[in-house]
């Protein structure tokens, strides 16, 4: 795990709580922009992200009109107007969206950088080990320390329960990424473990983001 100064990290997010996404053309065609610089756009919506975002530009090739919509919400910056009406190749940068990071996104990013992620070894159903689950039931906010060799998770596959032992760096289980008993795909994160020395910092930063940050 890289040694990260959490305060610096937080400061950097504070000074620039944005992410600038450069959008490139997915394929070739004649481009016509449908938005202006400075315009606010919205990303895909709905429970399954099935409602497309704002229409950004249209690419036409062989009379095949393809509408390209915004992949995330934000403000349009840097449109390459010189391309308007011309033929562009695939992979050309055409515009950028300044996306304001939400509280959840920042917390998620910080945790991803700090935590040790324990991933699912198989496509299976997962449960927390009995003693961990019972401890959590008694004290939901308890800091559960795991060290290498601990039995932490039960993998349920083909009516067989396999106990999985932890083999990473020891620490506190900070985040559980799965619902007990639900199907998890191979490689998806199961647990986020925080090294003990980082824990107070993480908690402090997360607390500060949650209380002070405004979306």
């Amino acid at each position, binding site marked *: 795990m890289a040694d990260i100064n959490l305060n610096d990290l937080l400061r950097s997010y504070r000074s620039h709580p944005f992410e600038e996404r450069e959008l490139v053309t997915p394929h070739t065609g004649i481009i016509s922009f449908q938005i202006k610089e400075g315009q606010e756009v919205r990303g895909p919506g709905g*429970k*399954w992200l099935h409602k497309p975002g704002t229409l950004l530009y249209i690419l036409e*090739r*062989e*009379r*095949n009109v393809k509408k390209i919509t915004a992949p995330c919400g934000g403000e349009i910056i840097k449109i390459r107007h010189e391309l308007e009406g011309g033929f562009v190749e695939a992979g050309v940068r055409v515009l950028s969206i300044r996306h304001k990071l939400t509280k959840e996104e920042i917390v998620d990013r910080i945790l991803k950088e700090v935590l040790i992620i324990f991933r699912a070894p198989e496509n299976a159903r997962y449960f927390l080990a009995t003693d961990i689950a019972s401890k959590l039931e008694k004290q939901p906010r308890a800091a559960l320390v795991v060290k290498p060799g601990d039995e932490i998770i039960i993998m349920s596959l083909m009516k067989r329960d396999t106990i999985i032992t932890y083999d990473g760096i020891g620490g506190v289980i900070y985040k559980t990424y799965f619902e007990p008993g639900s199907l998890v795909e191979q490689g998806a994160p199961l647990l986020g473990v925080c090294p003990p020395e980082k824990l107070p910092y993480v908690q402090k930063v997360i607390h500060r983001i949650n209380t002070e940050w405004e979306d």
Partner: protein
Amino acid sequence: MKDSSKLLSQLAERIAYLIDVKGGLAWKDLGALLDDVQSLRRDIYELDEASIFAEIDKIRDRVSSLEREAAESLSPAEIVNIVRSSQRFTLSDILENVYDSFTELGGDGECNVDPAVVVARATISRRMKNKTYSHQVMVIGHEKGRGEEYRNGGCARPWGNAKALRYMKVAETEGIPIHFFIFTPGSFPIEDYPGAAQQIARNIYAMARLKTPMVSFISEGGSGGAEAIGLSDIRLMGSRGYYSVISPEGAAAIEGKIREGEKLPKELVEHCAAQLKLTAQDNLRLGTIDRIVEEPPLGARRDDYVFFRRLRYELIRATDEVVLKTKSFRAFRAYALNIRNAEKEGVPEDFDLVINWDLTEPEIERLLELRSKKYREMAKGFYGEEATSSILGLGKAKDLASQSYYEIRYGLLRSHQRNVMKVIEEVSSEGSVLLNKVTRPVRAAYEFVFPRPERASKGGRGGMQEHVSIFAEEWEAYVSPLANEDRTVSCPNASKYGCLDLWVPDLYGEFCGVCPTCGHHFPLEYRWYLEHLFDKGSVEEFNTNIVSINPLGFEGFQSRLEKDIKRTGRRSSMITFDAKIQNIKLVVAMLFGDFRNGTVGAAEGEKFVRACDRARITRRPFLSYIHTTGGIRIHEGTLGVIQMPKCTMAVREYIDSGGLYIVVYDNNSYAGPVASFLGCSPYQFAIRSTRIGFAGPRVIRETTGEDVPPDYHSAKNALKRGHIQGIWDRREFRKNLYEALMTMGGPNLYYK
């Protein structure tokens, strides 16, 4: 003081009911009248008794006169309001007041398999000459009151209908009649196993041949939900009930093209309620119900005991009638039925006869015959049939002749042939050389008389070579008009699978509308199937003289119908034809989307039934290829709805006679047809990228308040839920269909 308080609350209830019926406070200043009652209730201890009673009398007179006025001219929309009022009687009231005792099965109240469907084993009794006789019956119905928060307003979930079916079979085993009570605005539109549409289809299919007398009573009959327990020998309806293909609001949203979330104009809803012909009188006129049970002028409420008495009488009488019609002793039957017909308005205290509701085997046969006849006759005369009486007579004679021919050819001779074959095989299998010597000449002689039909080789039939593409020689014959454009299209799955853009002439020509990368099926017109699926030149259409009309005089529908006729060159959304697949003759019914979005009305239902009969008589396999169906045509009201039991009845008879019924869905197949004559097939397949379901996403959202995932109705999910039995690639449709014809189906098919 206590009395006056009671009187005032009764008056408040009556005014509230009037407000329900009239759909608001505005009519005749009902709001002010209600305020008067409320202020009297508030001041009850401050005023003297005499003045309170005087006020009460005044208000009561006013309310009574308003009730009379309201009852004089009830509009269809107001009848819908009556049915929806919280004061209307529900199934619980019927169970308590019509039946003597009952035991709920499948759970009670909240702890129930599905609280919207109530099943009870009950006893109903009649008096004759001061003696009481009890009958056992199975009561199955919807309950929308009594703890309504968990009953979904009487909308049955799929497992509720499964419960109903289970107890229908129990009643059949025990030989007791079933009384159905329909109080539903529609079925709960979810696809979870067993699936809304599929379960309704199973119910209708079972009811078509259920060996027990069935009587149903309709108070609120909403389309598919009602049909799930609606197919019965006698259908009664409350005089203030409604029975409709869709709610007036749903019809208004479709007719007015109202967007989701927008408010429906009240006038449009009222207009649609009138157009749908949903009242008891309309339904009686259309022949979709048998009798009306009179209710009080403004509809029966929970404490209308006179009405419950009448209902008990009508139910017993209807069950008697069903039973008596099956009796072989005609004189007695006619005498008993005449007595019933002679009765006038009043409900007699005593019955003249006690009729045993048990049926013998021959009587059950007759019951099923009568039921079949009843449903076959429904909606006749509500479609156009272009033929003179001589042509009709000729047609009938032709039908009769072909029936006799096929009966002899594949019935008598085939069974004789089978018996002979069986004897020869049994004798031959002994393996004795001696016997073989004896049987060889007999077999040779036999095979000379009955030559074996040419069976297909592994790869094909009639000399077709192995591994020859079934389309190779036919591609040139028909090119989809979609392929005539010089442009490219992108596959909708391009972002997921990286599909390359497709040149239109390639896609709709060589690729048969299928993306070569991911296999996504782009829609193709129905003619493509007519040309590519069947043997060249083998498609011969019949039933072309049956045409769709506007039987209810639905405003504005005639011109739209004519426009569709002009645009498509066809006069109904169903095409029925004889065809061949690698020389196997089959009968096909095809619903196509260009004409009224493939909706089913009286004409389509009749064409389907006739095609089914043709397949049964000629002993051919029957294919239902559904290019697209949008459900039951709302402009034909309940005439469309009764196509569900009518067509299912025909399908059931065909399958029971040993036929093979295969359903193949394509593009979009929704609602009534899937929930009846399509969903009941044991062999249902879908072409890839098809969507199948009961109700579309919008209806689900509006009914359940929940959004559904974009792939909720996909064929893949339908297969996962067990609704269909397989997914076919369009390019392998012909091959798969041929395989299915060769491997599936009963023994009655001519080529088996």
